[in-house]
């Protein structure tokens, strides 16, 4: 199953977070399934419960299937000051989901997150690995359209 990924890392617990990142990044629904946990547990010779503990601790990991594109909107104080709540409303409106949910077409999951370290351009969000800053409502509309229009 995950041999390609396992091949890159020695079976040591310290590689757990790397392995989980890779499994999640290569899954079309960007999450880590129970089955994957079993495989990793066997490879690293550690308890599945340890892996679940780690998965639930870190916000970048998901144990639930997610959309094709993960939107992470920063809600920390600097972005909050520059209007992150307004951006959240707009995104919720555009995508017809609440924070934490996935759109019915499976195209987007909307998440809130802490400071992404791009606060000079607040408010900020990431879609997958791309950062979008100096957000306005108009800009949001355009950005979302660029993902739904099949351009990306």
């Amino acid at each position: 199953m995950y041999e390609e990924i396992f091949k890159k890392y020695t079976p040591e617990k310290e590689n757990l977070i790397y392995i989980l990142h890779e499994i999640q990044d290569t899954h079309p629904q960007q999450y880590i399934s129970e089955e994957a946990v079993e495989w990793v547990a066997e490879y690293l010779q550690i308890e599945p419960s340890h892996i679940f503990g780690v998965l639930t601790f870190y916000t970048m990991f998901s144990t639930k299937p997610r959309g094709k594109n993960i939107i992470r909107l920063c809600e920390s104080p600097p972005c909050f000051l520059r209007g992150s709540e307004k951006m959240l409303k707009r995104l919720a409106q555009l995508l017809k989901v609440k924070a934490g949910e996935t759109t019915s077409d499976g195209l987007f999951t909307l998440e809130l997150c802490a400071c992404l370290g791009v606060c000079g351009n607040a408010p900020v969000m990431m879609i997958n690995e791309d950062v979008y800053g100096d957000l306005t409502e108009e800009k949001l509309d355009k950005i979302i359209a660029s993902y739904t229009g099949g351009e990306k």
Partner: protein
Amino acid sequence: MKFYRSHILIGIDDSSLAAGVKEIEALLRSELQKNNLSDEINILETGTLGLFGTGVSMTVFPEQVTYVNLTAADVPEIVSEHFLKGRPVTRLALKAPLKKHYDYNYKNRIVLANSGKINPEDIKDYLAAGGYEAWEKALLIMQPGEVVDEVKASGLRGRGGAGFPTGLKWSFTAPIKAEQKLFVINADEGEPGTFKDRLIMEGDPHKLLEGIMIGSYAVGATKAYIYIRGEYKLCIHRLEIAIKDAYEYGLLGNNIFDSGFDLDIYIKIGAGAYVCGEETALIESMEGNRGNPRSKPPFPGVQGAWQLPTVVNNVETIANVPAIITNGSEWYKGYGPDGCSGTKVFTIMGDVNLPGLCEVDMGTSLRTIIDEFGGGVKEGHQFKAALVGGAAGVFLPIERLDVNMDYNSLRNYAAVLGSGAILVMDERADIVDMLYSVIRFFRHESCGKCSPCANGNEMLYKLISKIRKGKGAPEDLYNMDKVAEAMFHSSFCALGQSLVMPIRSAIEHFKADFLKRIN
């Protein structure tokens, strides 16, 4: 080697990427090609130019013209006017006040001296700027103990928040006899409003590596780790290149410069948890565990990752080390006041005209930083407050604008330098809302290991939400203070202990905002 007529330095960092720099760069390349200029004009990707709020920007050498706020429509004009005909497009260039700001911002730099000026993905650029001379000096001329002493004498203090003297930290680990010691760089940078370490790693990754080499040698560590947050993809990419090149140049590996000293550097990636910036939680995370803090003592310097003596230092701290070794501790002490020597990188954001960063002497006043480097409070608005030091920081009112930004001066106001984040708020900001956002952050980031922090955060969140909805009672303010104080005394780690600072300062200086909601 090709000879180029001009070099274009394009600042590539997360900020400019957010502003669409990649599309503009691609367009620039194709326009240059169309005009047969590709062999004459060189495009270099560099780190930040230090100008935010100015969109996509680039500097052309040797002309030293900086273009700002570029859009795709500007590119053909710049290519045909500037690069073909030799006439810089002044309309788009950085003009007097901004230009002064930009030059001024570069005057005093140590850790960001090369950032925006060299190609961070080319080790030759770093070498040409005097890079790795300090490493050679430390390894071949100095004894490890002399390196520790030099850093001690420089007065360098940790830039990760607590301000612990770096040389002293090293002197605890250096004499320990162990099979293996570790040197760990804390690049988890999660304090809201902080992005200085990102800029250092994106703009000049070799400077960090050189500092790690010197530090590892000083304490006798033969393995070093950079623990970096998973979101910092560009940093990770550039560090990977830098490490690979450093091996190729014989700066890392076995028996470096025939000295008998071995060193390997590895990158460890985090997965999104603010508490992992706490050094013992970071160590747990490195080992592949949940990032719950450990009890201290034993301190990591004695017993850290995998029970080995482990020095943990912040990125900015270590980026100061090469210059200290090259120029000596006396030179370093020429920057900043007694007891807080050196420069500090501040990030300035919020309601200012030019959000961005500056590297200035420790002890520069808050007013100077906001006015000179942040471009002042937003046009047409007045200063109301600054949240200094990140979420684990303090709300300062206008009466405190002249405070000097160094560890000791801020302590007089029960404030902290923290990570050096400065969030400016003008009269439109409501401190109840801001405090709500701060508490919500902590509530989310509490690791839940100890009940004072886990329960305290819940209580605080309920109280502030109630006040925010206009349903608060006067005693709620008192209760918030009491809860935060109890957390300060009984929380297991500094995360839970920190809330008292923003809460107490917000209520003390901006009581009117609270009373308005309580009526």
